[in-house]
C-alpha cells in the first residue's frame, strides 16, 4: 500500500513537470502554420490596428495563423529578451532601436538582405528607412515600421495674442519669443520644458545645434574627437538653455515628463513644445487642429538642426522555423498602404517615400514639417547617440542629475560639463 502511494505520487509529479513539453508538442501537429508575433511598444489602440492587419492577412492566407503576443509596454523588452535567449517559439518580433544591438550581439536576428532585395516595395523605402534598417554592422536585421523624429509644436493662437505672427527659424529666435511671452502675463510661460525621463533627448540637440563640428555618428563627440559639450559654443548654448529655464519655464519644469509637457501646451501655459509625431493625435483631439501648427526644429548657430530618430521595426529570430512565412507577413504589414494605415492611427512617421506624396493624411497638414526635415539633409542632420557604448544606458540618469543641479543653481555650467565629460571618459 505504502509503496503504491509513493509510486503514484512520484508519477503525478513527473507528469506535472512534463505538461509544458506536451503543450509545446501538440501545437506543431496542427495543419495550419502558426506564426508567433510579439509586439513590444504595446498600447491598446495600436494593438487593435495590428490585429486588424493580421485579420486581413489571415483572410488572404487561410493556411497561416498569426498569434499576436502583446506584453505590457514596461515589461515587453525584457520579456522579449528572455524569450529570445531561451529560443522560445517566436517568428516575428518588434525590435527597438536600443535593443537591436544586443539582439544582434547575442546572434538572435536573421539577416534580411535577400528578403529585402526580392521585395517589390524595397525601392520605395525612405533613405532614412534603409539607414535605420542597417544600424548594426551595416546589415538589415530589421525593417523599420515607423519613425519618431522631433519637431516644434507651436500654439499660433497664443503667440498671436501677444503680437507674434512670424514663426521662429533659429533657436535664438525661439528663446527670445519664449522669454518675451513669459513677461506678458502671469502664469504665462514660454517653453514646454522636459526635465525628467530621458530629458537629454530634448536638451542636448537644442544645445549642440550651436556646435558646427558635431560627429554625426556620435552627437557627444566633435569631428576632432573631443567631448562636444566641452566646446566653447556648447558652453554658451548651455548657459542660454539655463537662462531659458529661468526666464520662460515654471520652476516645476525640472520635474516635467511627457504628460506635464503636453498638458502645459494644450492648456496654453507654454506655446512652444518639442515633441514627436505621436503627440499630434493627442493634441488634435484635445486642442483642435486650428489652434496650433508644427514647424521644423529651429536651427542653431551652426545653421543646422540636429535630430535624432527613434524607431522600431520587425525582425525574424535566427532560430525561427518559419522564416519565409514570417517574411511574407512582414512584407504585408510593412507595405506602403498598411504602413500608412498603421502610422495614421498610432501617430509616428511612415517608412515609404510614396506615402508622403500620395497619402491624403501624410501629404498635408502638420506632417509637411516632418517631410521637410527628412528631405533637406543640408539643414537637418540626423545624428546618433552612442547606443553602442556600455555607458549609454546609464547616461540618462547621470545627465539628468547634473542638469537638474545646474538648473536649480547648485552647480555651474562648467562643473556640469566636467561631470558629464568624466562620465564618458
Amino acid at each position: 500500500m505504502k509503496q503504491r502511494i509513493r509510486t503514484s505520487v512520484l508519477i503525478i509529479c513527473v507528469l506535472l513537470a512534463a505538461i509544458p513539453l506536451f503543450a509545446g508538442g501538440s501545437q506543431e501537429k496542427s495543419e495550419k502554420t502558426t506564426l508567433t508575433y510579439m509586439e513590444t511598444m504595446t498600447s491598446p489602440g495600436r494593438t487593435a490596428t495590428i490585429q486588424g492587419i493580421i485579420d486581413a492577412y489571415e483572410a488572404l492566407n487561410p493556411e497561416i495563423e498569426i498569434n499576436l503576443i502583446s506584453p505590457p509596454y514596461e515589461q515587453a523588452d525584457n520579456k522579449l529578451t528572455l524569450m529570445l535567449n531561451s529560443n522560445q517559439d517566436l517568428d516575428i518580433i518588434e525590435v527597438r532601436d536600443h535593443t537591436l544591438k544586443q539582439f544582434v550581439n547575442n546572434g538572435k536576428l536573421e539577416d534580411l538582405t535577400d528578403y529585402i532585395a526580392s521585395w517589390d516595395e524595397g525601392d520605395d523605402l525612405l533613405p532614412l528607412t534603409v539607414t535605420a534598417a542597417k544600424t548594426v554592422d551595416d546589415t538589415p536585421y530589421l525593417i523599420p515600421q515607423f519613425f519618431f523624429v522631433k519637431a516644434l509644436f507651436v500654439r499660433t493662437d497664443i503667440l498671436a495674442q501677444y503680437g507674434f505672427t512670424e514663426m521662429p527659424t533659429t533657436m535664438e529666435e525661439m528663446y527670445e519669443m519664449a522669454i518675451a511671452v513669459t513677461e506678458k502675463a502671469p502664469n504665462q510661460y514660454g517653453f514646454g520644458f522636459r526635465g525628467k525621463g530621458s530629458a537629454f533627448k530634448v536638451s542636448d540637440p537644442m544645445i549642440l545645434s550651436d556646435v558646427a563640428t558635431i560627429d554625426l555618428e556620435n552627437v557627444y563627440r566633435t569631428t576632432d574627437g573631443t567631448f562636444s559639450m566641452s566646446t566653447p559654443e556648447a558652453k554658451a548654448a548651455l548657459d542660454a538653455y539655463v537662462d531659458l529655464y529661468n526666464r520662460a519655464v515654471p520652476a516645476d519644469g525640472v520635474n516635467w515628463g511627457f504628460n506635464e509637457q503636453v498638458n502645459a501646451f494644450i492648456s496654453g501655459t507654454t506655446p512652444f513644445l518639442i515633441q514627436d509625431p505621436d503627440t499630434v493625435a493627442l493634441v488634435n483631439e484635445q486642442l483642435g487642429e486650428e489652434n496650433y501648427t508644427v514647424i521644423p526644429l529651429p536651427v542653431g548657430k551652426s545653421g543646422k538642426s540636429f535630430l535624432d530618430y527613434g524607431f522600431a521595426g520587425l525582425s525574424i529570430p535566427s532560430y525561427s522555423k518559419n522564416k519565409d512565412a514570417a517574411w511574407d507577413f512582414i512584407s504585408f504589414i510593412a507595405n506602403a498602404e498598411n504602413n500608412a494605415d498603421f502610422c495614421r492611427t498610432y501617430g509616428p512617421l511612415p517608412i515609404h517615400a510614396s506615402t508622403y506624396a500620395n497619402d491624403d493624411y501624410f501629404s498635408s497638414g502638420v506632417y509637411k514639417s516632418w517631410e521637410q526635415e527628412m528631405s533637406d539633409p543640408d539643414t537637418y542632420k540626423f545624428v546618433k547617440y552612442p547606443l553602442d557604448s556600455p555607458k549609454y544606458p546609464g547616461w540618462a540618469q547621470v545627465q539628468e542629475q547634473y542638469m537638474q543641479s545646474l538648473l536649480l543653481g547648485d552647480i555651474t555650467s562648467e562643473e556640469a560639463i566636467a561631470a558629464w565629460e568624466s562620465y564618458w571618459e
Partner: protein
Amino acid sequence: MEDKTYRWFLVPALILLVLCIYVPVLRGLVMAFQNYNMFDLTNIHFIGLENFSAVIRDVHISFGQILANTLVWVTASLLFQFVLGFILALAMKEPFRGRGIYSGFVFYAWALSGFAIGLTWAWLFNGQFGLINDLLVRIGLLESPIGFLSSKSLAMIAVLIPNIWYGVPFFGIMLLAALQSVPAELYEAATIDGAGRVRQLFSVTIPYVRPTIISTVLLRTMWIINFPDIIYAMTSGGPVNRTNILATQMINKIFKEYDYGQGAAIGVIIMVLLFVYAIFYLRVTGRQEEEF
C-alpha cells in the same frame, strides 16, 4: 511503526515552494556576483564583488545619498503610518452609526495600486494646475504656486505624504482587529483601580495588542523599503537624486540600464539590511517581552 506515508503528500507543495520562492531568491543572489547585462548576454561570468563596488562607489549617483533617502523614507513613512493608523483604529473601536460605510471610505486607499496613487498625487502637487497649490494660494498660505516635486527640500515630503496616506489603513485594519479582542473586563478592572483613559491606553490597550504591533511594524518596514511605485510615478527619484531610494535605484539599474547584476546587488543589499534590522528588532522587542 507509525505510518509515515503522509510525508510524501508534502512533496508537490514543497516542489512548488522551492520553485516559486527559493529558486528566484537564489538566482538573484547568484546574479549579484555575475556580470549579467542584457546588452551582453553571451558574456555572463562571475566577477566577485564588482557589482557591489560599482553601486556603492558610483561617483555620479551617490550611494550615501540613496541610503540616507531610504532611511528617511522608511522611518518617516512608518512612524506616521503607525501613529495615524493607531489613532484611526482607536476612533473606530466603539460602534457608531454608519461605521461600516465609514470604514469602507477610510480603508479604500489600501486597495489602490501604488503607481495609480503616485500619478494622482503628482497632479495634486503639480506646480501650475495642482489642487494643493491652488488651495494653499486661496487660503493665503502661499503667495504663488510652488513646485513641490522640483524642490530639493520639499520633494521628499511630497512623496512621503501619499505613502503615509496609503499605509494608514493597513495599521488601522490590523490594530482595530487587535483592539476589538481586548476583553472589556480589563478596562472595568482598570477603571475600578482608578486608571484614567491615558493610563488605560498605555497600561492595558498597548500591552495587550503588543504582539500585533510588533509583527505589523516589522512587515510594514519590509514593504515600505521595497515600495518604489509612488516615488517612481511622482519624481522618478529626482530632483537631483533627492527622492531616490534603494528600490527605485534597483529599478533604474534593471529597466533603464538593463544591468541585472548591479540591480541584483542592490536587491541583496536591501535583503541584508532587512535581515540585520529584523534580528535587532526582534531581539529588542523580545527582551522587552521578558521584562513584562
